[in-house]
């Protein structure tokens, strides 16, 4: 037993959890082809949720600021991207892959640009006056979330909006008897690229070093003469942009979006952040993948339980590790 535990620790410890879940699910499901489909769907969903959650986690880790309005960026990103895709419907419908790619690239770019700008505004106007005051932070960001949701209602109306997908991402790839939706592969790959880029920035660049040091001990970094508040604005903006990108991808995934999207995703994002542990990118990724996989497996095995599956997962993990799987915050 002891030896087994050390062996597990050496090969990755909690990181093996998604593998274990997938392994157990394989036997519960029994049909390899549906298992592959579900796993791919779970991974794609996990990657999109990771994009939405990573900013929240980093912002909390770096500055001890909990942003309840984070999901506003997600829904704004989704709606901005949907509008851009709506305008470029001609490009999307065309046969040329280049035009297709250009359209979706522009849509994501618009969402990211919006996320950057909105993040800056949000940080400067809403959050800066209430640093170090958790109670008021929660209240104010909650108020901001209400205002943002109402703005979406005012601009885009309350009716669901159709999001066109580019032609080349429509349909699925057949491998043997396994059908894999192209968009899911695309979402997974894009999420992976962003994760690797984030990891590279955090682990291999000077800015990343400062951010990690700030998460570890803010006062010390400030005492060494670095302006961590400026760094914080940058992290906040990037986090918001990532959330907007995640929302944009989610819009393409769901193809039908309503203003309630933000509120729905907020719960999932919170659960992911709690499971993963606040402040670490790896933890958030782990939590997101877990949530994505479990949601898909449970949705297949016991549809009645699907709603509560995230909650149950969170409770189990909190009982096991009260600070999340891989926390970075002391």
């Amino acid at each position: 037993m002891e030896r087994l535990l050390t062996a597990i620790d050496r090969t990755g410890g909690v990181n093996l959890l998604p593998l274990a879940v997938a392994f157990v699910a394989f036997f519960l499901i029994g049909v390899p082809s549906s298992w592959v489909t579900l796993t791919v769907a779970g991974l794609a969903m996990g990657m999109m949720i990771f994009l939405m959650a990573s900013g929240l986690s980093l912002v909390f880790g770096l500055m001890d600021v909990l942003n309840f309005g984070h999901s506003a960026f997600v829904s704004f990103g989704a709606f901005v991207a949907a509008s851009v895709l709506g305008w470029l419907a001609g490009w999307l419908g065309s046969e040329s892959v280049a035009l297709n790619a250009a359209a979706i690239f522009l849509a994501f770019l618009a969402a990211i640009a919006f996320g950057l700008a909105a993040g800056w505004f949000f940080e400067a106007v809403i959050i800066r006056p209430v640093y170090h005051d958790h109670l008021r932070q929660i209240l104010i960001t909650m108020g901001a979330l209400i205002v943002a949701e109402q703005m979406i209602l005012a601009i885009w109306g309350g009716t669901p909006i159709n999001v066109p997908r580019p032609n080349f991402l429509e349909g699925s790839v057949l491998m043997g008897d396994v059908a894999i939706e192209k968009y899911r592969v695309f979402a997974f790959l894009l999420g992976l690229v962003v994760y690797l880029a984030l990891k590279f920035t955090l682990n291999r660049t000077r800015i990343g070093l400062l951010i990690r040091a700030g998460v570890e001990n803010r006062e010390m970094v400030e005492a060494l003469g670095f302006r961590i508040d400026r760094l914080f604005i940058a992290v906040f903006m990037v986090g918001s942009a990532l959330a907007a990108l995640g929302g944009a991808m989610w819009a393409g995934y769901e193809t039908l979006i309503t203003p309630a999207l933000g509120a729905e995703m907020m719960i999932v994002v919170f659960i992911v952040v709690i499971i993963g542990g606040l402040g670490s990118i790896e933890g958030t990724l782990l939590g997101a993948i877990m949530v994505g996989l479990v949601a898909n497996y449970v949705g297949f095995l016991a549809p009645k339980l699907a709603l509560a599956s995230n909650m149950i997962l969170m409770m189990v993990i909190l009982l096991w590790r009260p600070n999340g799987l891989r926390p970075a915050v002391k």
Partner: protein
Amino acid sequence: MTQQINRGERFVKLVVLLIAALLLFAPFLFQDIRSLEVAARICVFIVLVASYDLLIGYTGIVSFAHTMFFGFGAYGAAIALKQMGPGWDAVILGTLAGALVSLVMAVAIGLLSLRVKAIFFAMITLAAASVAMVLASQLSQFTGGEDGITYKTPEIFKTATKLAVTEEGKVARLFGVKLNGKLAAYYFVFATSLVLFLFMIRLVASPIGTVLKAIRENEARAEAIGYRVVAYRTFIFCVAAVIASLAGSVYSIWLKYTGPETALSFTIMIDILLMVVIGGMGTMYGAVIGAVLLVLAQYYLRDLMGSAAEALSEIPLLPFILEPDRWLFWLGIIFILLVYFFPRGIAGTLSEKDAKT
């Protein structure tokens, strides 16, 4: 310990007493159905907001699950009345069942999450509340789904019931008010709300209230003195949950309808937050002022906005701003401004005015 009562505090108390008197005589002062509706809603929300204030104002816990407990109580009474028929046994059983479910949930959430970082608690309660909301709309064979449940309440609360009869067999009138079941229902709401509110006032004045404030001000110190912070937090969370659940039962009896909109929706949570912040956190009286102001605004100001938007439809932009659909938008902005500039709310700011000099 003698406390110097200053002018501001006395003024706040006076206002609260005045509101209590108005609510007591509401059926006689404002003789239309809508006003009675408003008065009953104010009574229930005073209790609900005060119980939330126990958490946020006195103990410094931010919970987003308060409507969930309110909903448990409302649905408990509603389902019992629907299944067992109108009777006091159904009312009592449903209310107790709702309160019990709330208590169990509160203990579970409290023990699970109050020991971890305080900030997790807000997230976990939010998640729990959203699950409860989805469940209510999914389990439609019990809860009626999105449509909710309509049911009959005990005989005495029916509008057709005559409490006193004149010689001709018609409903007797007192100062021109029909003594019918609606009146009995209102006084039922008023009396239960009053009892619950007085209980909470007593609770915060007791030694427990002092410990709670100590936890809010400095958790580590309270722990060091020897108070078990987790136990106290869980206890007050349970008390608040049960009171919210009772308020929900009372409101469901008054409305004779329970649905996601009236009992579980997130808008109610936002209303509660606004009322607490407007009235003033950490003062029981603030809950009264906040609830009265916001409910009045909801019922009357919103209509006013609508008619203003119509009247000004010629002028560009103004009607867009004043449209009743934008109501929540403006509330959100007011909320943010209040938290920035008057974090102590009306009651808190007034009481503080003279205290400084």
